[in-house]
């Protein structure tokens, strides 16, 4: 019992650290992420460049901090949009049932039927590569997932006594949905947002790695990994550290979601 709060604290601090790094990237990064230096190309870690430099002599630590900002920003924007749109659709489907539910969820089923990466690639193929299209692509992919995740628990809540009571005293649909039902879904939303954010980071990194996301020279973790791969045998640092940064970012977010889920879900608390 005592060890869950410990992991919770650790992962909470780690995620906060990531957020701080992303938000204050320009203040924290020691160098300009685009500044090139011909003399200091593909160097290993040193006192001046903690993580070394890339093929243009750009400081890797600065590029990774800025790349973290880009990846985190795109993933967070995409997941927020998906949460609002998908969550609302899921709520409406659960509340109104019948044809609303059937039609909405059928549409979500169709979107859900596409493999995640493939649908994202399809959306980018239409809109052209770039950070904006990447965010839209990830939002499209995660909307049906949020709709499904919210609809399930919302269905149970809609049947509960307090909703019936609210209806009896004449509360409007909007009021019931947003004042009575939504707050009760907070724990589901927090957990799933954290887990899906972690997954979205990986999708963003994959898309950038394929050259469909953030375009060079802007620093992005996936793009850096793709560039570093071309110089793997000469200087592996760029590939090693950019990938490690993706892993750490996705790992901390996933761990946080995972630990929060266990802490909030009393059924699981005793078991594991």
């Amino acid at each position, binding site marked *: 019992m005592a*060890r869950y709060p410990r*992991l919770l604290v650790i992962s909470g601090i780690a995620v906060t650290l990531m957020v701080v790094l992303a938000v204050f990237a320009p203040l924290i990064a020691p160098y300009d992420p685009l500044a090139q230096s011909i003399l200091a190309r593909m160097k290993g870690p040193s006192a001046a460049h903690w993580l070394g430099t890339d093929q243009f002599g750009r400081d890797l630590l600065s590029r990774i901090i800025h790349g973290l900002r880009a990846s985190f920003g795109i993933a967070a924007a995409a997941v927020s949009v998906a949460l609002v749109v998908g969550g609302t659709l899921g709520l409406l489907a659960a509340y109104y049932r019948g044809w609303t539910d059937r039609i909405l969820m*059928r*549409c979500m*089923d*169709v*979107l859900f*039927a*596409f*493999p*995640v*990466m*493939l*649908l994202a*690639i*399809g959306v*980018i*193929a*239409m*809109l052209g590569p770039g950070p904006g299209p990447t965010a839209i692509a990830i939002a499209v992919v995660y909307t049906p997932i949020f709709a499904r995740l919210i609809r399930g628990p919302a269905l149970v809540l809609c049947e509960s006594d307090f909703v019936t009571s609210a209806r009896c005293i004449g509360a409007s649909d909007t009021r019931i949905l947003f004042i009575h039902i939504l707050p009760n879904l907070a724990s589901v939303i927090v957990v799933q947002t954290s887990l899906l954010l*972690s997954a979205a980071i*990986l999708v963003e*990194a*994959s898309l950038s*790695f*394929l*050259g*469909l996301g953030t375009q060079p020279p802007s620093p992005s973790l996936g793009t850096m*990994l793709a560039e570093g*791969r071309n110089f*793997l*045998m000469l200087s*592996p640092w760029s*590939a*090693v550290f950019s*990938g*490690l940064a*993706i*892993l750490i970012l*996705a*790992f901390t977010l*996933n*761990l946080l979601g*995972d630990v929060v889920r266990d802490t909030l879900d009393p059924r699981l608390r005793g*078991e*594991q």
Partner: protein
Amino acid sequence: MRLLRNRLIDLLVVLCGISIITFLMIRLIPGDAVAIMLGANTEVTPDRVADLRARIGLDQPILRQYITWLGGVLTGDLGVSLWTRRPVTTEIAAHVWPTVQLTLLALAIGAGLAVPLGVLMARLRGQGWDMVLRIATVAGLTIPSFWLGIMLILLLTALLPDLQLLGYVPFLQDPVGNIARLLLPAFALSLPILANLARLVRSAMLDALGQDYIRTARAKGAPERAILYRHALRNALIPFVTSVGIMTGYLLGGAIVVEQVFAIPGLGRLILGAIAERNYPLVQATILVITCGFVLVNFVVDLLYAVIDPRVRQGA
């Protein structure tokens, strides 16, 4: 039978929806799709735009376009590639096997190792282990497979410089070389699903072990091995099977990325090449084919689920 009928209706609805979305892909491109496509390779002139528009039928009313297109799809005609003018189906057929093989191999590795690993994890309970296992599985889930692939290449090239790691040889030409080269990418690709499935098996095992029928089995003096494998595992495998179906989707998408790392000429290369030269009909057809494959796999898995678990059959 009713279950089968309902599932078939679901399947048809979803396939219909998929066809509409992929059909709309080209039509929803902001701006003049035809000019954008032409712009990738040649100078855009009104003549060429009109010619290409007529060639892919974009000058027809939209409903007519859909019906013509769907008719083609159903008879196996997915159109022709814009630049090579070869049938799209030929292009896809030339690239589909490496991806399918990679996906299946990764699925076999992931699902195959997940069962013993999950059972082992279920037996390791208590103080230190829970935290170690949790961190290990979360790390497995979140490790980017393309990065893992690159790191494995780096490591193996340093250790065994003579080993041929990249590329692809057809199975019929060199079966051993084919599998040997696919092992590393398949392993990199399978790690997240291995972590996911092992964890699922673990919690399902723990769940099953707390049930009454396990106590009954213990009470009648069944040996511990039999309890673990015959009684608990069999029930624990039910959620496992459904997840395996969903994992295929993840694997197909992941394969597209991992293929790039290992220079495997699969669907990933096809679709990325098509995007680069704005060959939209080819992008559209590839997405349609892969998605339909994925949906059909899940359909079969759903039916298998009913075969394994009599409760599903009764309940439906």
